[in-house]
């Protein structure tokens, strides 16, 4: 018989005292080739959210999660609290392709959680990469209507940075998933 899972409760407005100690915005060593992913978390009025937490989970460049053989040393996990302007930034590596549950290959992506006051549970979404031909055949991206798919794809910016804003509701709302 399965045990009943402990349910979620909101992270609340004061998570910083418990959670920022283990924040990690650099997922790769400083001397390694990296990409920078940055963006804003915006509310339904387009205002930045200064007290949200964003987490990413990803495979390494070869498509291996940290628990897999050969990926030792890569943590695959990042967390940032948004600043007063609602910004977040991660320095990481572009992940390789990983298989979906039905063994189709997924396009490179970051799994993303958004946590904040007023949300009983995390919001779950994904960030995909621009100019990536594998996006066309990604099984999760293909669940999403074509005109909303762009909310999941980062935009290339100067200096090799990627820009990706998360819009919590309203116009241009980011696609969120039920897990």
């Amino acid at each position, binding site marked *: 018989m*399965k*045990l*009943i*899972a*402990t*349910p*979620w*409760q*909101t*992270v*609340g*407005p*004061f*998570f*910083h*005292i*418990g*959670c920022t*100690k*283990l924040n990690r915005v650099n997922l790769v060593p400083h001397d390694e080739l990296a990409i920078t992913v940055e963006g804003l978390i915006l509310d339904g009025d387009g205002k930045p959210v200064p*007290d949200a937490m964003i*987490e990413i*989970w990803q495979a390494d460049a070869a498509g291996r*999660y940290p*628990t897999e053989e050969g990926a030792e040393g890569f943590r695959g*996990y990042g967390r940032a609290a948004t600043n007063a302007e609602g910004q977040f930034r991660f320095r990481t590596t572009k992940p390789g392709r990983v298989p*979906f*549950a*039905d063994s189709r290959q*997924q396009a490179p992506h970051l*799994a993303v*959680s958004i*946590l904040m006051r007023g949300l*009983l549970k*995390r919001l779950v979404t994904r960030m995909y990469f621009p100019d990536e031909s594998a996006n066309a055949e990604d*099984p*999760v991206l293909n*669940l*999403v209507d074509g005109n909303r798919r762009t909310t999941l794809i980062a935009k290339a910016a100067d200096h090799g940075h990627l820009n990706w804003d998360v819009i919590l509701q309203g116009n241009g709302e980011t*696609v*969120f*998933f*039920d*897990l």
Partner: protein
Amino acid sequence: MGERVIVSGRVLDEDGRPVRQTVIEAWQANAAGRYLHENDQHDAPLDPNFTGCGHAFTDDEGRYRFVTIKPGAYPWRNHGNAWRPAHIHFSLFGPAFATRLVTQMYFPGDALLEFDPIFNSVQDAEARARLVSAFDWETTIPETALGYRFDIVLRGKEETPMEVHVR
């Protein structure tokens, strides 16, 4: 300052297997119901000797243990005369993206539970009961601290990507 408590338990998966060497983060208000956070406006004193945060790793049996102070209830402006029951926030990762959990632990017999919209946001009574710790003589230390047991069950990692639905 306040009532010393020992909160301990096991982190398990849905099959009852221990989740080993996983990090648990915890944070809470002090005994007066005040968080050491600049945005907490509650008119109650800060305790210079209490940060209200900590983290621990589970051992190979999935066990963890925190020694802390029982947090106080505190008012919030959700509705008229709204008070949060005493609670400790917990954050856990487990082995995969799907096993991530952020939750709150409550104390048994708290009269405020019945009125708390956050506790009652969990519809299922059995799942809600998972959020309430149990008083525990076994971990209570004579003349020192009361023990509370709080086991945490993380959902299965295999539930991941097949169950992705557009929200």
